[in-house]
């Protein structure tokens, strides 16, 4: 994983996205440091399952947390979505929230969840085939562009297809809200 992140850091930096590259580099170093530290303390548990940190919250408190996070997410999406794409305020907002969520989720799910057990092999393989096909299709479209930074009408990437939606402030806010909701969903996994 560390090598993959380092490769992503390198390629995103040379393709004109230095902020992405720096974030990947920081996470790669952090992951290597964390793995080394845990291996020194507990050599047998180098990549053991991560434990949940808290028991499930009581219903009333949980409802309050959900409402507060929902309100915060809506405000974040509205404010950051009002800035134009690739501007420094939008970059700061995304970078700030992204860092906070990665740090919160680093040590385990924020509430207790069932383990889930083993997954059926054939069904899991079906998911892998569909998701890898999607990645390869996107990569094919990207490589058919005149260059990595020039869009192609004939071979649009997902980024190119979402450009019209992200050109408007409401469109950006809606997608940001979906991104925030996905982050929330992931830290609870």
């Amino acid at each position: 994983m560390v090598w993959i992140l380092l490769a992503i850091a390198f390629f995103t930096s040379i393709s004109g996205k230095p902020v992405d590259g720096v974030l990947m580099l920081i996470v790669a170093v952090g992951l290597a440091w964390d793995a080394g530290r845990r291996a020194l303390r507990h050599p047998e548990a180098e990549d053991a399952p991560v434990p949940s940190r808290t028991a499930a919250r009581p219903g009333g408190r949980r409802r309050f947390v959900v409402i507060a996070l929902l309100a915060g997410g809506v405000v974040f999406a509205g404010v950051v979505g009002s800035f134009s794409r690739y501007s420094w305020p939008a970059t700061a907002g995304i970078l700030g929230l992204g860092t906070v969520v990665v740090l919160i989720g680093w040590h385990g799910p924020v509430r207790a969840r069932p383990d889930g057990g083993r997954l059926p092999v054939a069904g899991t393989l079906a998911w892998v085939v569909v998701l890898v096909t999607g990645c390869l299709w996107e990569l094919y479209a990207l490589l058919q562009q005149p260059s990595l930074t020039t869009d192609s009408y004939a071979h649009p990437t997902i980024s190119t297809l979402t450009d019209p939606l992200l050109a408007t402030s409401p469109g950006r806010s809606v997608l940001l809200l979906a991104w925030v909701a996905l982050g929330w969903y992931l830290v609870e996994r």
Partner: protein
Amino acid sequence: MTWHGLTIAGYLLVVAGIVVLQLLATKTAVPVPSFGELLTRAMRSRTGRVGVLVAWAWIGLHFFAR
């Protein structure tokens, strides 16, 4: 069909595949895990967990940040 249409059809086919697998997982007895179960399994280890969270952060940076 033009290359533009064909490329979009490819994306739609992948989305259809995701929807079909999710429906099979949640609405039938076919042994297919749901997307949530897949994520939970992938995020059981520290490496997988951080990898998925960083992928999420990268999506936000890619679409909105400079």
